[in-house]
C-alpha cells in the first residue's frame, strides 16, 4: 500500500524537506516518501496541527486499520478514519442495511436499504475520500476467521454489538499484538477505552509491587461478561444516535492519535518499553476509560463525561496474565477454545415456569373472546416506551425493573399472605386496578405479559413468592412468548418494537 497515488509526486521544489526528522534515517522507510499534491491539498488542515505534521500524515497514509462492525459506532468512526487518510481500511460486517439502522448509522443511506453494510459504507467512504484502499469483509467475525481478518492490520476498532465478540476480538488482539480501540454504547450510555497499546507480548509485563508494566486488555477491565439477560442490545434497549455517534468519532480520534504518533508499531527490540516518551508510555499502561452519560431529562450537566483511570495488565487476567500462554492460543481459539458464546450466556438466572402456570397468547385471546376469562388483572412488564406504542386492552404497565424493586422491598418487609404482597400491590398498581382487587376481588386472576416471554415468567414467580396467589386460590399466569407472540398469533398489525 506504500507509495500509492504517487504518479504526480509533489517535489516541493526538489528540496529534501519531506524527509523524516525524528532521527530515523532509513531510505526504505515509508515515511521518507513525498506527498502527492492531491494528498497535500486534502490533508493540509490536519497536517498543520501542532504535533501532527507531514510525518504524522505519512504514518497515517501507510497505516492499515480494521473496523469491525459497520453500525452505529463503525459508521462515524470510518468517516473520520477515511477522511484522515488512513492508507488501508478494512471493514467487517455480515449484516444488511435496515431502516431501523438509519437514525444513527450515518454511513448508510435510504437508497441502500437491503444491501450489505460493508458495501454501503464503502460507497459512502469512497465518495468522501477516494484515496484510501478499502477492503470489504462481508462476514461476521468468528473464532474461526478472527485471526486471519485481524493479522494484516496495524490497529483494530471494535465497533461490534455483543459481549462474546468483544472478548474474541480482544483475545486475538492480545495474541497478534494489535492495539485495540474499543467503544460501546447502548440507550443513553457510551464507553471508550484504548487497550493493548503498546502491545506487550502475552504473559509479559505483569505488575510488580503495585506498579503496572503493560497495557490492559478487555478482560483486564471486564473480567466477567454481564449475565445474558442484562446484556442489552440496541435492538431491545434502544440507542440515541448522537450518543453512539460521539463514541464512534472519539474512537477514530484515538486511532488517528495512535497511528500518527507511531505508537502502534511493535518495537523491534521487543518488550515495548523504554522507547516511548516516559509520560506517554505511563499513560497508556493505565489508559483512560471515557464514560458518556446522556440524560434525556436534564440539561447538559457536569456529569455527562467522566474520564476514569484504569488499571494496567493484570496478573490474574485469563488472556494476558500469568500463565496465559498455556490457556489462550490462536490455534485453540480456532478450535473453539474458549467457547465465547458459552462464556457470555452462562450462567443464566432465568426462571422457566411449569406449563400449568403459563398460557399461550392465542389461548389467552380466545378465552377472553369467549368470556371464559372475565374480570382479571393484566400486567405488562415492558418498558414504558414500548408500552406507549400499543398494548392489549386493559393492560396496566409495570416495567420489569420497577416490579423487581418493589418485590425486593416487599419481600424484605415480610410477605403477609394477605393477597396484596404486603403493600406490593399498593406500590406498583394504579388505583383503578387496586379497586378491583378488594371487596370480593381478592382472588382475581393475574396475567403477566412482557416483550418476549422471559421477564413475565420471573414476574409470575416473584408475585407468587410474595404470597399473592393466596395459597393457590388466585391464579397467576404467564402469557407465553410475550407481545411478540401476541403479534404472531393474535394481531399481526400490532406495532411490536
Amino acid at each position, binding site marked *: 500500500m506504500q507509495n500509492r497515488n504517487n504518479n504526480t509526486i509533489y517535489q516541493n521544489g526538489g528540496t529534501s524537506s519531506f524527509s523524516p526528522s525524528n532521527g530515523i534515517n532509513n531510505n526504505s522507510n515509508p515515511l521518507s516518501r513525498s506527498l502527492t499534491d492531491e494528498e497535500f491539498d486534502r490533508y493540509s488542515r490536519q497536517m498543520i496541527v501542532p504535533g501532527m505534521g507531514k510525518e504524522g500524515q505519512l504514518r497515517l497514509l501507510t497505516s492499515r486499520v480494521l473496523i469491525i462492525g459497520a453500525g452505529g459506532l463503525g459508521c462515524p468512526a470510518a468517516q473520520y478514519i477515511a477522511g484522515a487518510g488512513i492508507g488501508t481500511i478494512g471493514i467487517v460486517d455480515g449484516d444488511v442495511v435496515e431502516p431501523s439502522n438509519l437514525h444513527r448509522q450515518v454511513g448508510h443511506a435510504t437508497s441502500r436499504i437491503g444491501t450489505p453494510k460493508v458495501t454501503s459504507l464503502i460507497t459512502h467512504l469512497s465518495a468522501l475520500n477516494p484515496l484510501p484502499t478499502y477492503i470489504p469483509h462481508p462476514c461476521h467475525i468468528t473464532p474461526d476467521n478472527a485471526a486471519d481478518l485481524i493479522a494484516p492490520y496495524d490497529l483494530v476498532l471494535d465497533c461490534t454489538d455483543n459481549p462474546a465478540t*468483544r472478548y474474541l476480538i480482544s483475545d486475538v488482539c492480545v495474541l497478534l499484538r494489535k492495539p485495540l480501540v474499543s467503544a460501546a454504547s447502548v440507550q443513553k450510555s457510551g464507553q471508550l477505552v484504548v487497550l493493548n497499546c503498546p502491545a506487550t507480548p502475552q504473559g509479559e509485563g505483569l505488575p510488580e509491587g503495585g506498579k503496572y508494566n503493560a497495557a490492559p486488555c478487555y478482560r483486564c477491565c471486564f473480567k466477567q461478561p454481564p449475565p445474558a439477560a442484562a446484556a442489552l442490545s440496541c435492538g431491545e434497549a434502544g440507542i440515541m444516535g448522537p450518543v453512539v455517534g460521539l463514541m464512534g468519532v472519539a474512537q477514530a480520534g484515538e486511532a488517528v492519535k495512535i497511528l500518527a504518533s507511531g505508537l502502534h508499531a511493535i518495537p523491534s527490540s521487543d518488550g515495548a518499553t523504554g522507547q516511548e516518551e516516559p509520560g506517554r508510555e505511563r499513560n497508556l499502561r*493505565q489508559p483512560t476509560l471515557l464514560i458518556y*452519560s446522556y440524560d434525556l431529562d436534564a440539561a447538559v450537566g457536569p456529569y455527562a463525561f467522566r*474520564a476514569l483511570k484504569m488499571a494496567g495488565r493484570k*496478573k490474574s487476567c485469563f488472556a494476558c496474565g500469568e500463565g496465559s500462554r498455556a490457556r489462550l492460543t490462536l490455534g485453540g481459539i480456532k478450535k473453539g477454545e474458549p467457547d465465547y458464546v458459552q462464556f457470555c450466556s452462562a450462567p443464566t438466572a432465568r426462571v422457566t415456569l411449569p406449563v400449568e402456570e403459563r398460557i399461550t397468547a392465542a389461548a389467552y385471546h380466545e378465552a377472553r373472546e369467549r368470556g371464559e376469562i372475565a374480570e382479571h388483572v393484566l400486567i405488562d412488564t415492558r418498558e414504558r416506551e414500548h408500552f406507549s406504542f400499543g398494548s392489549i386492552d386493559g393492560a396496566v404497565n409495570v416495567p420489569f425493573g420497577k416490579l423487581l424493586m418493589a418485590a425486593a422491598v416487599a419481600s424484605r418487609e415480610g410477605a403477609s399472605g394477605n393477597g396484596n404482597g404486603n403493600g406490593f400491590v399498593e406500590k406498583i398498581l394504579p388505583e383503578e386496578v387496586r379497586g378491583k382487587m378488594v371487596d370480593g376481588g381478592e382472588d382475581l386472576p393475574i396475567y403477566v405479559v412482557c416483550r418476549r416471554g422471559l421477564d413475565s415468567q420471573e414476574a409470575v414467580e416473584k408475585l407468587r413468592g410474595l404470597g399473592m396467589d393466596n395459597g393457590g386460590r388466585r391464579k397467576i399466569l404467564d402469557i407465553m412468548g410475550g407481545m411478540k407472540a401476541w403479534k404472531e398469533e393474535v394481531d399481526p398489525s400490532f406495532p411490536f418494537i
Partner: protein
Amino acid sequence: MTSKTPKGHFNVLYFASAGSFTAKQMEAMPAPLPLKKLFGTLEAHYEGITENVLEHSLVTINLTYVEMPSGEDDDDQDIIIQEGDEVAIIPPVSSG
C-alpha cells in the same frame, strides 16, 4: 470533576445497567466504609444487584480504578472509602 457529598457520606454513582437496576443515578451512603463491604452494603439495599450488576462491573473511587478485594491478586489492599469520596459502579456496555 467529582460530585458533592453530604457530611459523613460518600457518593455512589450508578452507570448504565447499574442505574436501571437501582432506578437512581447517584446516592449518598454513610462513610467510612471498607471497600470489601461495598457490595454487601449495596446488596442490602438492592436485592440481586451483586449477581445482576456488581459482579461484572468495574469500580472506581475518585475517578481511579480499584481492584475489588478477591484474594486473587497479590496486591489486594484494605482500601477504606472515605467521607467525600466518589465511588462509581460501571457495568460493561456491549452494544454499538
